């Protein structure tokens, strides 16, 4: 049997809903495991991405760390995929783009309802927020897109099956949703 395809996944400015949806392929994961193995991913806890065949990116780019992770994936993955509305157009986090970062932070950490010991987090370990949330194609070249919020388990299954079969990935109308 041919070597397994290496797949890396990450969640940037996303809600992990896309990763949860990936798990919705349920028992098909066992079949998938015969064809792929995971590299860097919340599923493996591997911290850095090695050379991979496929990189699945959930979420847009909202802070400096997201930029570095995204670039690491692009450098290492032959095929980079924007997974879900957030990676494709910024998604719901990008709804903050109409407000100043300062106003967002004040609303969350200073003036927000029920805030105690109000202060804006400033630990040096915390990545700095960008002034806007960006879709990932504005930072790196993206090869394929899986629309949906989240894309259904069937979308993941169809997409990965196509790649495993060496075919150009395509989605039938029934699986193409922007919501």
């Amino acid at each position: 049997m041919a070597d397994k395809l290496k797949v890396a996944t990450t969640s940037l400015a996303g809600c992990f809903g896309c990763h949860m949806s990936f798990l919705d392929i349920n028992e098909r994961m066992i079949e998938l495991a015969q064809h792929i193995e995971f590299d860097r991913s919340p599923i493996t806890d591997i911290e850095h991405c090695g050379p991979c065949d496929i990189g699945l990116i959930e979420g847009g780019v909202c802070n400096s760390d997201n930029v570095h992770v995204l670039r690491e994936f692009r450098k290492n993955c032959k095929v980079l995929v924007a997974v879900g509305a957030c990676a494709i157009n910024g998604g719901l986090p990008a709804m903050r783009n109409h407000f100043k970062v300062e106003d967002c932070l004040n609303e969350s950490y200073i003036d927000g309802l029920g805030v105690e010991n109000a202060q804006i987090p400033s630990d040096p370990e915390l990545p700095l927020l960008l002034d806007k949330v960006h879709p990932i194609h504005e930072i790196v070249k993206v090869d394929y897109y899986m629309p949906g919020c989240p894309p259904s388990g069937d979308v993941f299954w169809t997409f990965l099956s196509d790649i495993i079969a060496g075919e150009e990935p395509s989605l039938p109308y029934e699986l193409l949703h922007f919501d």
Partner: protein
Amino acid sequence: MRKTITIDGQEIPYTEGQTIMDAAISADIYIPHLCHDPDYEPHGSCKLCTVSVNGRNCSACTFPAMEGQEIINHSVDLEQDRKRITQMLFVEGNHFCPSCEKTGNCQLQGIGCYLNMHDNHFPHFFANREMDASHPDILIDQNRCIFCNLYVRASQEKDRKNVFAISGRGINKHLIVNSISGQLKDSDIDIADHAVHICPTGAILIKRTGYQVPIGQRTYDHTKIDAVTLAKENKQHGR
């Protein structure tokens, strides 16, 4: 003698005064369109209906049908142009479909899916657009307005009012309301007006009617926009 034009090799009849779009709809041929509704004067602004007429690109909704026209409606190039136009409409506004009540019933989204559009291709404008929630029954969310101008035409041509207009240019283009305060609640609008129900996207919504049809069971969730539109517009033409 019967007058005819040819669309993608198919000869179809037309009558004097019809546009290419009119003739196509009557012949059950779908030409993608967003700013056009056969009940109103053509506006020719979205350019989705671009077809090639004897080798030159024209808007089917405004171009008169004429004897001897050889029209191409489906080609790789035209589909690509239409996809890019749709992507421009998406990045120009703020379209977060997962949080939009119109999702699944939206013509813009329906066109996107019909064209097999997976991404928005261009950098996003993230333009600042206003909302007007002042009216007790009607909500305007300009983030989703594509300036099809249908609400302007509906208000003028059918409602015999003049509630809406479009103002500004480029990123600052926006819908304006004809009232002293500029707010919808102070205008002549009525919930029964055609202008309130014509919006192809989620820019004009009726309050307290949201999510009555669950996501997944909506108009374009299982049926492509070409079939939905032809069925509707042929009926409008009394066929």
